């Protein structure tokens, strides 16, 4: 969180104070303290092993289960105490402010839903055979309230402390329906703990923790595998690029640029992932183009140009067997189409061109212009933007050009290193991605 503004401090203080106040106000008599102790310990364990969400500042732990169980077993005040135990979670790299906020927030997510539970006619105490299925309604209400309270408090703190630009991204990570659904799934564990208390006693959390930790393990495995995947794809793409010094890092940057556009126009998470890979792989088909054609400095013959024009098809050929979204494949195949229909390989016009391809085309051309080529130096970003605008509507989709420009003006753009090539022999020819290169149309295609 770094340095906090005054408003943010007041906010964090208010949340913590409210949580504390509800605990102190009580009534503290008649609370089942054994249950509170066991569940509080569970919260500490969960909080200490929380997994980070994709956003830097958010992490997620299954302590909802313990808090909701506490609502049923010990009532709102007991649940507030159990939630407040989040203060004691041991985690690296968490500031004291964060700990205090988490404690206060979790206490509130215990107390307020606890009141909802009572309001809906839920009965506090160890549920017996006669409590079901009547208990399910109030419990579901409490679970929903828990998620709502948790999310609104989190959104509040993100809004007050987030750097400009990143707040929206974090809110998106938070509001990912999968996260919310998982959260509700873990809430169901809370009822399980409460229900089994009469049968298994304090042993219940141990048994309940097992599937929970397996689920977390699986999620972590998934994340690790995804990172490995990304790294491998990027390494292999770089291998492809070694054919040509000037295009080194091109795929990586086109991928980044496409993702910027995708975020800007509010694409869904899954599609953003797909376009990230599409960007990385968009030029893979260039390997089908013989090196001497790619590196030829003179004028290309029609046959040679035809070979270059075929590279999107070749790329498709290579990646077709990957279980991608079809959209990514279409994007790779059509990333050299132009809005006015003078592109290749199919000569599609306007909306006929798949959305992914229109996004890729903008990022592709932009990176090409801002990189050094053998026949010209790298252009500065403003000049490249002007160039994009000039071709907007004829070569590029204006909507995506606008989105890209907006994203660059806000977040900036990191171009390639402008160091000169070491090997003198690697002289690249006219870049096929450069929109300022003269347009050529091959009739035979």
């Amino acid at each position, binding site marked *: 969180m770094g340095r906090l503004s005054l408003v943010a401090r007041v906010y964090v203080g208010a949340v913590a104070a409210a949580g504390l106040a509800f605990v102190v106000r009580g009534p503290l008599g008649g609370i089942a303290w054994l249950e509170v102790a066991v569940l509080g310990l569970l919260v500490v364990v969960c909080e200490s092993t929380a997994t980070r969400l994709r956003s830097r500042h958010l992490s997620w732990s299954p302590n909802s289960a313990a808090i909701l169980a506490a609502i049923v077993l010990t009532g709102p005040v007991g649940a507030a105490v159990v939630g407040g135990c989040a203060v004691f979670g041991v985690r690296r790299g968490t500031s004291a402010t964060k700990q205090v906020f988490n404690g206060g927030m979790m206490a509130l997510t215990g107390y307020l839903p606890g009141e909802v539970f009572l309001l809906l006619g839920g009965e506090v105490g160890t549920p017996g*055979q006669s*409590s*079901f*299925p009547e208990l*399910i309604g109030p419990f579901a209400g409490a679970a929903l309230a828990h998620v709502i309270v948790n999310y609104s408090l989190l959104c509040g703190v993100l809004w007050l402390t987030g750097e400009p630009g990143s707040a929206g991204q974090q809110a998106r990570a938070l509001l990912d329906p*999968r996260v919310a659904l*998982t959260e*509700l*799934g*873990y809430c*169901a564990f809370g009822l*399980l703990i409460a*229900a*089994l208390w*009469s*049968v*298994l*006693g304090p042993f219940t959390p141990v048994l309940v923790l*097992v*599937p929970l930790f*397996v*689920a977390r*393990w*699986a999620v972590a*495995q*998934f994340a690790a*595998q995804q*990172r*490995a*995947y990304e*790294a*491998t*794809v*990027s*390494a*292999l793409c*770089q*291998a*492809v690029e*070694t*054919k040509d010094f000037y295009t080194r890092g091109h795929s990586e940057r086109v991928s980044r640029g496409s993702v910027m556009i995708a975020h800007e126009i509010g694409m869904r998470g899954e599609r953003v992932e797909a376009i990230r890979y599409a960007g990385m792989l968009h030029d*893979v*088909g260039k*390997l089908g183009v*013989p*090196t001497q054609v790619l590196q030829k400095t003179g004028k290309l013959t029609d*046959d*040679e140009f*035809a*070979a270059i024009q*075929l590279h999107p098809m070749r790329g498709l*050929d*290579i*990646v*077709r*067997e*990957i*279980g991608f979204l079809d959209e990514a494949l279409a994007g790779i195949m059509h990333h050299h189409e132009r809005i006015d229909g003078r592109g290749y390989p199919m000569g599609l016009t306007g909306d006929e061109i798949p959305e992914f391809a229109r996004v890729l085309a903008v990022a592709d051309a932009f990176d090409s212009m801002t990189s050094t080529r053998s026949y010209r130096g790298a252009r500065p970003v403003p000049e490249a933007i002007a160039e994009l605008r000039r071709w907007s509507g004829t070569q590029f989709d204006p909507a995506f050009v606008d989105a890209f420009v907006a994203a660059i003006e806000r977040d900036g753009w990191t171009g390639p290193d402008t160091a000169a090539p070491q090997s003198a022999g690697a002289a690249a020819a006219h870049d096929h991605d450069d929109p300022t290169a003269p347009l050529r149309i091959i009739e*035979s*295609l």
Partner: protein
Amino acid sequence: MTTTTRPRRCGSSKASEAVGERRYEPRGFPRQVLDSGQSLLVIFAGVLLIASVAQTAAAGPRDVRDAIAFGALIAFGELLRLSLPGDRESAPIATAGALAYAMLIQVGNHPARHTAQQVIAVTAIGMIVGALPHLAVGRPARLSGMAARLLAVACAAGVFRPLASNPEIGRHWWLALPVMASLVALAWLVEAVIEALIRTDALRARFGVALVDEMRVQLPLGTAVGASALLIAFAAEVMGLAAVAMFTAPLLVTQVAYRRYAGIRATYLQTVRALARVTEIGGYVETGHSARVSRLAVSIGRELGMAEPELLELEYAALMHDIGQLSLRDPIPGGATVLVVRDEQRRIAEYGAEVIQQAKVLDSVAEIVRRQSDPYRPGAGSTAANGGRGRGRGNEPPLSSRIIRAANAFDDLVGTSVEPSRAAAAVERLRLDTAGEYDPQVVDALGRLVSRRSVLGP
């Protein structure tokens, strides 16, 4: 232009005609058909099913409401079947439901009185109902897998149902819990053993290796399934049948995570396979070379008793073993690395390893690729064959590298030919070089595969 797959065979073939010509042709990999062992298993499960249904029908089904609820859960779980890494199938929710049904002591106010036969009948019917929609959309169920799951449940039910009527079990959770936990473990073990036997049979893997692989893959999910089964069984006492509906949700979370994990793993392999073909499209290697070498290498590795994680690394390394050729300005004629000088081979291997190392997660794969050009016995050549194993052992390239070296040489010599005599001749040629170049153990395994015709087309 050079748009054909062969390098440097120029001429001005029209670019467009080469587009769809390349095809990925799998060559005689042991196919997964129901052979004798598996059909025996399925027949056994079928007989068990018929006997159980008949017996349950004759004695009259007990607690029909419970049976329907659990049957529905099992069908639902079977519908949400899950693919695990290594061409495995699992139905966690169905298994948890079936095990919970087998270990039910009390549902609400009334004791559960159903028999082991009824458990088997309900489980089997639930599984079949859940498999039907899959069948309808053309995804046939793996009968042997279903049979294994049914037998595992049958074991647990057979032991626990007679115990369930014992009042002591129902009264003390500290008595019931250990019994139930060990039965869940038993069921898990039974399924693992059966699955390992199936794999031994189908893939000619070694049983011990297959069993360890199976247990490693199934352990985390199996633990979650077992714990969920116990939880449902216990919760049914307090919550009645509501427990069945309620506590599928947590297991669903696990399953979603698993599905995504398995999905990305599959995509990973597909991507490496696809990108490995980059060298073919660039004209550096003959079409299908990487795929053939990797298939052959994995077969050899399995023949030599390698475990699954090692096999996966071997497969990655074999697929990418020629990626270093991208650094060459001029492709080697035919891409046959066996024909070029050792220094060149080493440079290619080194460069390929560097590329792979950039991924940072595949370091062992990079090491395999790096060492693929090293001869089996560095600097040996003429030393006595006897002393080979002991001396210079520390300097020996890893087994996976030795396998790739032999598989690569074999494919360079044989190519797309399906003629058995040519393959046999290639093996003989490699055998001549076992003094220094190739690992005799690997060449022997290759020879066995060739004589079984499992590397050549039908």
